[in-house]
Structure formats: structure tokens, C-alpha cells
């Protein structure tokens, strides 16, 4: 994907930029809102400007894969971008060039309501968690759309009731089986099918926002499981 970001053809570059923004806008926006404590409007503006700058200032070309993961590098760039912008007197009108990044920030404010950035956490851990949250949020959405389109309402309900619930509200398989008039094994199978598809969707997204096979695999190793932050 990064190859395309560096392409000379503006059309290819624009499309690459859109993909980059699609993969990263959620963690970038959340980071701007919670870590930098930018108000809604400014955060949106900054996010937009950031993705444009990535291309126009040729920032992507300066990334050195041997020194940092792409994710970490994006976060570092974002930090200096915000610092620069804050220093600049007033905010210039951004995004005025050939590139416009569609940020589907729709609904994200509702998601963020009540969320606070833990002040003790180091920025990279915070950004990383938001990035993972972004991968899963987008994938859960896609899964939901898919299941609805395929008419698999039961599978979707089971998934939402069980896998999206917090520990305390999570029903037992037996309870779900009674509620849905299914046998327990079937509940297990439905859940497993939903998770398997979710996993595939997460991995598709991961591929979009990593630079190469090696980084993709390294990130995947740390994505699943609960051992670390």
C-alpha cells in the first residue's frame, strides 16, 4: 500500500491516500480528541490536514521501516504535525489542493462520549490501543452488515449478545440457547462462525494498514490474544 502512496501518478496517490485515511482516521481522530484534547471541529480539520500533509509533504517517503513500524511512525508524524500546526499563527485553510480526504467521522463522536485518555499512559501505547480498537470496530461493523445482508439475524444476535457484551452482562450459552430455541452446540457453532469471519475481516484491514508482509505478520502476532495492552 505504501508503494502506491509514493506513486508519481496523482490519481494512484489519491486513491492510496484514501485507503490510508480509511485505515487510520479512527485512531488518528481519537488520538487528536483524547490525547491532544482538540475540540471536535479542530480534530476533524487536523486529521484532514494530516493525511493531506502525509502526501503533499512527501512524509510517507521518509518512513524508515528498519526503525519503526508504520503505525508508530504515523503517530510520531501526527505529534509533530499537531505541534507545528499549533505553533502556526491561526489555522490555514487546509485541504485546498487537489486532494480531499473523505473522513467518515459520522458517529464517532457518539462513540467517544465519555471516553477519556488515561493521562499516565504513554502516547504510543494509547495510539496502538486506539488503532487496534479501530481495526476491530470497523470489522465488527462490516460483519454486522454482512450478516444482515445474508439474513443471518440469529448469528448476529448471538454475536452481539455474547461477544460484544462486557463480562458482567455476558449470558451463558445455555441461556442463549433457551432464548433462541437452539441447542447449545448450535450456539457454539454460530458464535464460532461469526468469530472466524470477524478474524478474517480484521486481518483484511490489518493488511491495508501495514506496509509489507513482514510487518503484517508481526502486527498480527500482537493483535490477537489478551496478554498485552
Amino acid at each position, binding site marked *: 500500500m505504501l508503494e502506491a502512496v509514493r506513486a508519481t501518478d496523482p490519481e494512484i496517490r489519491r486513491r492510496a491516500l484514501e485507503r490510508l485515511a480509511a485505515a487510520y482516521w479512527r485512531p488518528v481522530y481519537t488520538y487528536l480528541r483524547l490525547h491532544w484534547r482538540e475540540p471536535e471541529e479542530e480534530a476533524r480539520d487536523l486529521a484532514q490536514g494530516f493525511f493531506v500533509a502525509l502526501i503533499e509533504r512527501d512524509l510517507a517517503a521518509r518512513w524508515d521501516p528498519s526503525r519503526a513500524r508504520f503505525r508508530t511512525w504515523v503517530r510520531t508524524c501526527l505529534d509533530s504535525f499537531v505541534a507545528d500546526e499549533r505553533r502556526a499563527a491561526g489555522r490555514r485553510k487546509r485541504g485546498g489542493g487537489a486532494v480531499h480526504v473523505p473522513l467518515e467521522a459520522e*458517529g464517532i463522536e*457518539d*462513540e*467517544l*462520549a465519555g*471516553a477519556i485518555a488515561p493521562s499516565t499512559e504513554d502516547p504510543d501505547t494509547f495510539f496502538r*490501543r486506539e488503532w*487496534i*480498537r479501530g481495526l*476491530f*470496530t470497523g470489522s*465488527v*461493523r462490516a460483519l454486522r452488515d454482512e450478516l444482515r445482508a445474508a439474513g443471518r439475524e440469529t448469528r448476529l444476535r448471538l454475536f452481539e449478545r455474547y*461477544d*460484544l*457484551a*462486557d*463480562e458482567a452482562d455476558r449470558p451463558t450459552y445455555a441461556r442463549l440457547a433457551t432464548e433462541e430455541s437452539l441447542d447449545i452446540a448450535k450456539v457454539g457453532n454460530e*458464535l*464460532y462462525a461469526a*468469530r*472466524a469471519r*470477524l*478474524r*478474517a475481516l*480484521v*486481518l483484511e484491514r490489518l493488511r491495508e494498514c501495514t506496509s509489507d*508482509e513482514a510487518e503484517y*505478520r508481526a502486527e*498480527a*502476532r500482537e*493483535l*490477537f*490474544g*489478551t*496478554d498485552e495492552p
Partner: protein
Amino acid sequence: MNRLSDEALAHLRDVTERPELPGDRYEIHERLGRGGMGTVWRATDRELARDVAVKVMTLPAASDRERGRLQREAHILARLEHPGIVPIHDIGQLADGRLWYAMKLVRGVALDRAVESVSALPARLRLFLRLCETVEFAHVQGVIHRDLKPANVMVGPFGEVLVMDWGVAKVLGEPEEGEPAAPPSAGAADASGGAATDGGAATDSTSPGTVLGTPGWMAPEQAAGRAHTVDPRADVFGLGRILHALVGSEPPRRLAAIVARAEASRPEDRYGTASELAADIDRFLSGTAVSAYREGALEKLGRLVERHRVAILLLLAYVVMRSLLFLWGDR
């Protein structure tokens, strides 16, 4: 949609990794650990009603080469039937393409933790001897481990010693990924002692993937990127490092000499095989002269006195008794 809470996110990260093995045979429980290739889970084998460990790759293999790594490890385990090596029971592929294999569940702790409760030197050395036996067995079967370190050795509740993690092992006579396909050229390879390496001209290739093993534990020749051409003495080095860690900071001189020979930087200065190393440890334990150490006359006397202490005491007692009897009888 609400923001995924930290808790829900953690749950999703967990359930999307949890494998579902085909059929009803295995029930997956908790994670036992993670490694470079994948995650190891505790599972119940319902057919045989026993617990096993199941290793599952993180992702489907991207290439035949990657597929090869886990399969190779499985094949090595299958080939090395020995009480010091976990037996493998089953191998397969998940619906999404991830490879897995089931092996004996080891209920033990890594060597470094295990020896915390074993302070006596002879007891530690006896554990080490068992480790040497297993490594020697593998060598005789033509397999070099290449990643020996305390974390890869498990000690079970009955003192059984298991050598784990054969993922980067070398099978002598089998070509490896990235290995220069040069024909064997006489004299090019380091041919002194040990088993023959698989021919090859020793290139100093340091292309990525060539350096396998763990820094601090692997032999210098392996760290230098010549992993393809290493011979059993690379494992002797690993054993030497482990021994070093086991004997503490001030081992007896003869033992220190054994350590030094085992972990010598040049392969030709080391013991040629794990069993030669074990033999010296054995000699040390029984108080006979070790091959790694040339002792002075006084030291030799000291060692002999130490070794034959009981006999010498008996002899002395005898002499004293005789003298007393003699004196008495004289009166």
C-alpha cells in the same frame, strides 16, 4: 454503535485467536504461552481422555517455506522418540488455514526457574547430565537443536528434563531455506571433529533469516550467520552456556575448566560431542580427573584424599587400633 469498551475489545481479541480444531476430538482451554511461530494451548483430547498441548500458528502460512517450518518441527519431534523430548500426537490445519499440532502436555517449569529450588551442585549437575543425554541422542539422529537455553529446557515434577522448541533445529543432510546450494567442496568446510556438516562451502552469508538462535546463548559461528554449516559443537556451546548458568559464580576449578572448554569460542576448542562433555561432568562428580583440567601434584593429592576419604579414614582407624593393641599387648 457504542465504542468497544476495553473489556469487550480484550474479549474479541481473545476469541478471534482461539482455535477450533476440526472434529470433536479436542477441547481448547487456556493459553500456555506464545512463541515466535504461534501460540500453545492446553486442550483435552476427548478420545483418549487426557490433556495435551496444542501449538497453533498465528497465521496461515504465507508460503511453502513457512508451512515448512511448523511441519519440520513436527517431523523432528516425531523422529526423536526419547524421554527427554515431547512426543507429538497429531497434526492438522484449521478451517482458516492455520497449521497446528498436538503434543504431550508438559507440566513443569523452565530450567532457570526449576534450579531455584535445587541449590546443591551435584543435584544440578545431574539434571544437566540428563540434558546432555537428550542432546546427544538428537545428534546421533542427525538433529542439531541450535537454540539451547534454560528457557527451552523444562523440568517436570519428577525431575524429568525435556528439551523443547525444535523450531530452528537443523537436520543434517537436509537442505535449508536460504542455504547456499554449493556443491560440497573438500576442505572448505571446517572438518575437524564432530559430525560432518552437509558438505557446503562455508559462506559468510548474513542474509536475513540466516541468523537463527538467541543472542547470548548461541555459538559464535552461528551468530556470525553460518547457521547452515554448524555441527553438534554449536549445541555443545549452548550446553556450556547453560552449565555456566547452573554452576554459579565460583565453581570449583575443575568444573570451571569444563565450562570453559564447553563454551570455547572456537568450535575446535570445545568438546566434540555432548557425551564427551557429559563424561567429564561424570568424572567431576565421582572425583576422578577431568579431561578439561590439568591438575598440579598437590591438587591431585587433595582430590584423591577427597575421593578416597572413607577408605583413608578406615585405614587410619585400622592403623590407630593396631598401634593401640600393640601398645597394650606390650604391657
